[in-house]
């Protein structure tokens, strides 16, 4: 299946990319998508082993299941405000 992956801030710089369509075999978790991202975008390998992630615009743990068409976002440490 295909999920949309988005990179922000420093992670976008590491990936050299802000948005990508990533293919992973089903069933898959957010963690599986991240593992695939590390393969495809070597610059992201220096991200923490367990980066903050959002699934469809909500923060989730890395064992959350993903489905076709979902949006997975990789979030650097938050410093809002």
């Amino acid at each position, binding site marked *: 299946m295909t999920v949309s992956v*988005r990179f922000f801030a*420093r992670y976008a710089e590491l990936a050299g990319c802000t948005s990508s369509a990533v293919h992973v075999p089903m069933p898959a978790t957010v963690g599986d998508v991240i593992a695939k991202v590390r393969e495809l975008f070597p610059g992201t390998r220096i991200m923490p082993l367990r980066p903050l992630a959002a699934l469809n615009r909500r923060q989730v743990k890395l064992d959350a299941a993903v489905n076709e068409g979902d949006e997975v*976002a990789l*979030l*650097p440490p*938050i*410093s*809002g*405000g």
Partner: protein
Amino acid sequence: MSHITRHPLDVNDLLARVQGPERGGTCVFLGSVRNDDGVTAIDYSAYEQMADEEIARILGEAQRQWPDARVILQHRLGEIPAGEASIAIAAAAPHRDEAFTACRFVIEEVKKRLPIWKKEMFADGTTAWTDAQRQAKPTTR
């Protein structure tokens, strides 16, 4: 209405949207860019759609805790010069304790939850991402 803007924040506009004759106490918080270590501006970027939804969730939680209060928030993105505000929160309530507490609640949640990032810009043209862990900072500086 979006909680995110790329324009300077206008406190009077926020006040007009929360105040009313039933609400005797209003607390406003403004967070602005500090000129620490020669920072001239901070470039704010966000996962905008999620940030907007997360702000709505935070404001909804405040509304449930303080049902008589009105609380709003505007976050500015883009390059913000030192001294200008990146965030403005206004909370009006019948009494001052609720206004202060609701306003404080919102800024604390914002700091923990909003997918917004800061890149510090220095006079010499260098930049540095501000992570929550500040020691992890100087990649480009």
